[in-house]
């Protein structure tokens, strides 16, 4: 991270080597074009440089921090570009593992993602997908589905708590 702050070429390339693939994947799967995925990737790494001094390793892993930046930027773009057809979401539990990355941090993150998906009911999974991957707010889902806003919020909270418990159980074991 110090190298990134200094604009060190090797540090930037090392960060890119570890995280370009998941960032690019998020852009491609959420935004639907290679051009948009490339723009997102470039923006995420520039933003990581700009915000590197704010990264706090005590609050989470570097991989989580970087993907949060990628997610926020992708969702902002999704919400700006309304009316654009987006591709069908394909999750890691729907395709065979390619084992492209042997990076331990990334394997841990992928494992956590699989665990998170498995911990949810189908309804909860659909709800989380619409918020996290489509950028829909609780109010928008409430209006779309004709259910009270409070119910949507309660279900989102319940889903996140399930994921948290699943991850805690894994850590304890």
């Amino acid at each position, binding site marked *: 991270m110090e190298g990134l702050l200094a*604009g060190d*070429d090797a540090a*930037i*390339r090392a960060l*890119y080597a570890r995280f*370009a*693939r*998941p960032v*690019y*994947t*998020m852009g*491609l799967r959420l935004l639907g074009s*290679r051009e948009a995925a*490339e723009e997102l990737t*470039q*923006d995420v*790494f*520039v*933003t990581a*440089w*700009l*915000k590197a001094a704010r990264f706090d390793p005590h*609050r*989470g892993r570097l*991989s*989580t921090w970087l*993907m*949060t*930046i*990628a*997610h*926020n*930027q992708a*969702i*902002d773009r999704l919400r*700006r570009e309304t009316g654009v057809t987006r591709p069908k*979401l*394909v*999750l*890691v539990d729907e395709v065979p593992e390619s084992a492209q990355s042997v990076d331990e941090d*990334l394997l841990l*993150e992928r494992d956590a*993602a*699989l665990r*998170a*998906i498995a911990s949810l009911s189908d309804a909860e999974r659909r709800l*989380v997908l619409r*918020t*996290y*991957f489509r*950028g829909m*707010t*609780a109010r928008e889902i409430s209006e779309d589905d004709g259910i009270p806003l409070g119910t949507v*919020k309660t279900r*989102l909270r319940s889903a*996140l*708590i399930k*994921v*948290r418990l699943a*991850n805690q159980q894994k850590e304890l074991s």
Partner: protein
Amino acid sequence: MNCAAVRDVLPEFALGVAPVEDGNAVELHVARCAACRKEAVDLQRAAASFGYALAGDGAPPEALEQTVVDAVHEVARPAKHSHSRGRRTGIALLVAAILVASVGIGSVFAGREERIRLEAQRAASAQNDTLQRFGGITQFLSGHDTKVLIGTLSASSGGGTGSALTILTKDADDQVVVIVNDLAGRALPLDVSISDTKGHTVDVGKIRTLDNGGGATMAREIQSSLSGFVDVTVRDAHGRAVLRGTLQAQTAVASPSP
């Protein structure tokens, strides 16, 4: 926002879809409330699990690595080598921007007369009256319960300079003023946006015309709160970042480095 209201918003906040004003209120609250902060961190960790839930679909193109490295270097370079000069130039421009802001916000100025007036202000401010003007501006703003953040914009690639400020007001819409220069030849319109520390972005607007010097001034009211939004980006019509900069509290820039 009290603890109950914050807890109500936290799931959406953790999933990155809380309305901007709610998100800002949550940030402020969790900074001073340990219990809500723990809840927020826990839910954010849970939500972050989904960050790696998308199946891969091929590696990024090989050329993208060099593009990314070049982009980071371009952003890093001005901060490392020309900070003081850029800051002084920016202050002169920002005086003009604040003067624009003080006489009325809500429209995009890109006309020649306005530019001439702004350039005159810029020249005048270079004649040792910069700090005096800031004093007057501070006085003006202090009576309006406002907070001002200002900063210079540096070229991400090619030439160009710029400055920007935000005026955060408790009882009215927040405002953004952006001045750009030396951007002739860039693909128009230019998109101006501002991001917060979490990477959330608010569109400020488009600059559709430039004057003979490749400059323009934009002033906009923003319906949502701009608290926490400090990173300004100007992109050309191809989506390439041409100017970037980070805003700081007014006092930090009003005392320039020699």
